[in-house]
């Protein structure tokens, strides 16, 4: 492969002052039509295109992104990756994704810096602990690594945490998934884009879909600000804007779009070596490789599309972090931002067909879809290529909201990242 990334190619290119690196992906003009159009150049959309090409040999594919790829939630999230979900359906889907993460840098030839430093979910009440036991036992039986930690063990792994029994909500225990961790979000978008491009996929940035073309109950293409583009199959992966595209196709989705904020501190020397999440003391935290504390909590409770949130949510969030980590009180908050997340009533995604032939939706990942990026793309590519869901996403239909076959992950995912 030309321009393969490695320490050797870096050295080789250093000699020529790095002037010979090729574009990571091309910026072609849209063609008249494609076999498949993927709307949304986030991680999920790009992964879908990559797997369509690499797993199913469908290479005549375009990814349409209204701004710049990875600029939605993919580039705004706090990058927690884990698979310790409660219900079988989600556990299997996220575990598939985690397995893909485990070889992703090599497969894409792009270092996505997947760092398996462990994810800890704290329990602060007796009911928290019952839920942790339940989820950990289920993970174990689903073949997913999981441990239940006692406060002494937690103290060993994260000595700076306030584990005092006199805390307002003392830490009673935790679940711990060692294979969980964090990754570099931008690199995930760029790595998938580059790998998809290499397979022949056209990545069209600044290309906003403004209409879904249909004929006789089947999709025929899309209208965009760069003209009309035809396709018999269209996959929609636009996260917070799913309802907007759905309404272009005359559909309604059971989704609410909420702002979700995150923030970082100034960079510090390494001090926190694992990811810590807490539902009762509402917040979660990890430390990036650059040294920033990366922090988040729950959604702003109103709905909207403005990618910004309220200060009160930040206050609550930082209060929770200082409560758990009193040594961070004098650390300073650098920057805050927000994304728009697509929240489903049962906190689980919708991945599959719609009443319109050839139109597929992949949405509803809400506050926790980054970890699913490779898995989501993988099953969605399968669904589009075959016209039928894979067994891993068969349960995540749109119909479940009428049949009632919900997969309620709320209990397991109060802070659902």
């Amino acid at each position, binding site marked *: 492969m030309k321009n393969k990334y490695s320490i050797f190619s870096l050295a080789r290119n250093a000699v020529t002052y790095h002037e010979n690196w090729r574009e990571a992906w091309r910026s072609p003009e849209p063609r008249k039509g494609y076999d498949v159009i993927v709307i949304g150049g986030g991680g999920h959309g790009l992964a879908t295109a990559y797997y369509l090409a690499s797993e199913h040999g469908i290479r005549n594919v375009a990814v349409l992104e209204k701004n710049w790829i990875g600029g939605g939630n993919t580039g705004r999230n706090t990058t927690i990756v884990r698979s310790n979900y409660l219900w079988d359906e989600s556990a299997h889907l996220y575990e598939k994704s985690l397995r893909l993460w485990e070889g992703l840098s090599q497969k894409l030839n792009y270092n996505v*810096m997947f760092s398996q430093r462990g994810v800890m979910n704290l329990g602060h009440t007796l009911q928290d602990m019952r839920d942790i036991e339940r989820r950990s036992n289920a993970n174990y039986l689903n073949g997913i690594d999981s441990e239940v930690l006692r406060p002494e063990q937690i103290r060993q792994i994260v000595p700076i945490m306030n584990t005092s029994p006199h805390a307002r909500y003392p830490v009673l225990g935790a679940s711990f998934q060692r294979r969980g961790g964090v990754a570099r979000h931008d690199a995930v978008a760029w790595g998938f884009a580059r790998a998809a491009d290499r397979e022949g996929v056209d990545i069209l940035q600044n290309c906003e879909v403004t209409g879904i073309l249909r004929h006789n109950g089947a999709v025929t293409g899309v209208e965009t600000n760069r003209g009309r583009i035809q396709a018999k199959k269209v996959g929609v992966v636009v996260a917070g804007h799913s309802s907007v595209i759905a309404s272009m196709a005359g559909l309604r989705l059971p989704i609410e779009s909420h702002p979700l904020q995150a923030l970082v501190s100034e960079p510090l020397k390494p001090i926190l070596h694992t990811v810590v999440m807490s539902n009762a003391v509402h917040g979660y935290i990890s430390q990036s490789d650059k040294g920033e504390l990366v922090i988040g909590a729950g959604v702003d409770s109103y709905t909207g599309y403005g990618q910004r949130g309220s*200060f009160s949510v930040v206050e609550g969030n930082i209060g929770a972090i200082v*409560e758990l980590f009193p*040594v961070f009180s*004098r*650390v300073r908050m650098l920057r805050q931002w927000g994304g728009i997340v697509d929240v489903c009533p*049962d906190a689980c995604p919708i991945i599959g067909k719609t009443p319109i032939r050839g139109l597929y939706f992949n949405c509803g990942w809400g506050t926790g879809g980054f970890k699913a990026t490779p898995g989501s793309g993988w099953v969605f590519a399968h669904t589009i290529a075959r016209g039928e869901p894979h067994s891993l996403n068969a349960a995540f239909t749109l119909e479940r909201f009428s049949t009632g076959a919900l997969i309620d992950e709320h209990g397991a995912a109060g802070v659902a990242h």
Partner: protein
Amino acid sequence: MSRSLRVANGGSIRRTRLLSFSFNGTLYSGFEGDTLASALLANNVRTVHRSFKYHRPRGVVGSGAEEPNSIVQVGSGSKATPNLRATQIELYDGLTARSVSGWPSLRVDLYALNGLLGRLLPAGFYYKTFMRPRFLWSWYEHFIRKAAGLGQAPREADLDHYDKLNIHCDVLIVGGGPTGLMAARAAGRAGARVIMADEQAEMGGSLLSSTASIGGKKPGDWVETVVSELTRMPEVILLPRSTVTGYYDHNFLVINERRTDHLERPDPRLRRERIWRVRASQVVLATGAIERPLVFSNNDKPGVMLASAVSTYLVRYGVLPGRKIVFFTNNDSAYQTVLQLVDAGMEVVAVVDVRSDPQGDLIQQVRSAGVPIFEGHVVVDVRGGTSGLRMVLIARVNKTLDEILSHKGELRCDVLAVSGGWNPVVHLHAQSGGKPVFNEECASFLPGPSVQNERSAGAGNGTFGLADCLREGAEAGRRAAQDAGLTGDGSVDIPKVESHVEGSLHPIWVVPNGLAEGRGGKKFVDLQNDTTVADIRLAAREGYRSVEHLKRYTALGFGTDQGKLGNINGMAILADVLGQAPGKIGTTTFRPNYTPVTFGAIAGREIGSTFFDPTRKTAVHQWHVENGAEFEDVGQWKRPWYYPLPGETMNEAVRRECLATRESLGILDASTLGKIEIRGPDSAEFLNRIYTNSWLTLEIGRCRYGLMLGEDGMVMDDGVTSRIGEDHYLMTTTTGGAAHVLAWMERWLQTEWPHLRVYLTSVTDHWFVTSVAGPNSREILTKLCTDIDFSADAFPFMSVRAGTVAGIPARVYRISFSGELAYEINVSANYGRSLWQAIMTAGQSLNITPYGTEAMHVLRAEKGYIIVGQDTDGSVTPGDLGMDWIVSNGKDCIGKRSLSRQDTRRENRKQLVGLTTVDPTLVLPEGAQLLNEPAKEFPAPMVGHVTSSYFSPSLRHSIALALVKGGRSREGSMVYAQLIDGRVIPATIGQPKFFDPENQRQKV
């Protein structure tokens, strides 16, 4: 090294107050009024930092919030504070600071080897390598992490406290420079409630380092006059050391006020910082401008500084940052500083001006002062090391500033003062929702149209002349007051200032060095993140062409200075590479905070065991404490969990409590259950819609158990509701669900059923409730209450009576959650303890035993009563619980339709069952997953899980409740709890009822 660079006089430092401080272990001295940066410069300390990637030595560049380099750690122990900027640290006696990089030391930094490998480490190199072998990534990462990061988080908890204020004002003025001061004066005179915040220790802004006279006064004196006028206005609040860090929707702004960091020994009662949460009717952004550096080879060497910073150090701090200074500029403003230096009798080696024919009053003055001006020249490179510059190399440049015509040799100097123009501080405008627009004249972004009630003025608005700033400030203040509805006269005289004709700026984004791009010394754009011109070009070449991609790929602007110096240059360079106009590609998003804010301040007082979340205690909490109760957190409530006697284990205590209740008399504090008053003529209809069962026929004085569903048909909450009067009901909810249920019902009332005349009030805290349970409960109540007939017929199960218990007005319910004959007594919370005490005394002979939530759970589980949230999880229907009987067929209610959906009607749903372990002494862990046979391989099919599990003292064997697929039809069959620790516990499925299945005991 120790040669002082302090000039003999001048500056607003207090020279009589000598302060000593240490930096990296060495003692130095400075004066009151110094910043750490000015004091370090005065002591000729050149290198204060090592850069992020290449570990190059770095010195002080700026004089305020824009400073990218001089990041230090201050103090130690519980006072350690990482990542402060030396330019913003006010000096005090005994201050200790360390640099946050450099290993083993700042002077000799071994990581500087990275610099030699520099060519191997272009932007984004880490995306291209460290991939193989896979398992080594965590090893690489360990070293990457170690090399990264700035200061160290403290290791001790913070002893300082922080406060918050909420405040409304008519006009919030951000920035106390000449523009802001005039705005405040005008708004204040118009009668507005004004807040003026400035991040510096005193008001004055750029005037603090100015020598120009205003209205015939020295700048300092003029500032003092205005400040004293403002101080006399009762409705004006002046906030020094206060940064407006965030601008949110609805004109909500956040001010971070720092109150003690500058003090040597702050009064411990003082709060370290305060957050002002401001709702402003109008905002005036008088935020000034930040000088833009020039981008040339080795422009990061210690000794290269902003011209404005040189001016500030001289005029304000009496420090001459060097003995021999060269200026490098593309505009007139730097000439002002040259003149200041000349006036102070200092040597200015030369001015290197990129413009081939600069015209302007200041230039003439400099020329006549005899300072050489190299017109049409650039600095192509500099030489120097950790102790400062030695020389700069200059060359003639062509008219379009992109080609070197001839090299002109060197100029010896120890400081190079640079000016590439000015960037208005548009951050808050952008945060408010505005879109900054590119302005060709100043080659930078200016505020665009306002989206919220804000206006920019002065340098922050691209108005650079002092006279214009004063005028614009006054006008902005006057209009803001007007727009805020004030009618007072906001007119102010504009003081006279000297003004001069200025030549125009000639933008230059990258200074050529006569070599092909990327060759020669690195040209830094973002000093904190070591982003170079070559990095930007590489990013563009590789397709990272959106400004946001550029930012993310090269880390441009991601530092703690948020790119205050580098961003505009970087974006312009990208535009240039792409052959586009800078205005076309736009800026990256400006996000809060403007400058970093202490976590502790944002958290405020709402931390710690007392204030993190309110602790709710019942009226007899103290009694529980005195009697040795262990507590459980349920929602915000502290509930007695069990009451161990000395030496008793939890199991022993719970066993004793259960048996006493079953055999004689137990007493439980049940106050924490949610209580909601429901009043109004449509109350029954309302309940009928909220609950699954029928409420139209409930008689006064009777109560009924109800189940509430979500719209999805899943059990949401439960409780007993009683009818107190004609249009008056009292609902009880679960302890944890009370707030949610109230909000839920209000939502339905307000948004869907506004026509229903129903009024809800939470009364949870108004009542003290105790449950007296056990075969002797009737006896004790009869003893304590004479005005209620407790006979079974007169006071049947599920009814309520009003009366007097132990002399206290009370409502008494005959309901039971234990299966025993039981009464619940409700009295005003104020009487709680005396009621409790009276019952305890009266019950002594009956061995009355207080029991906690654990015994309560055991007793109810023996009966198979569910706890919502423990035995249900949001996926359980009434049918799953075997409670189809409670869903009335004759009416609709929330969630009912969902019960007839395909999946909710499914046969094989998980259903509530009882489990008994084969070994009766083994108690199944709650949360255990159940299988039909022990798993040999994984994933293994699970059929359910244990929701509640206890050892039953009355039955002398373990009992459990579980949800099991198709469980009701599997009575007698086996399931296996296979646990994460490897144990497998077999159990038998049975009815979810273990004790007194016919409910005989409560009927007596």
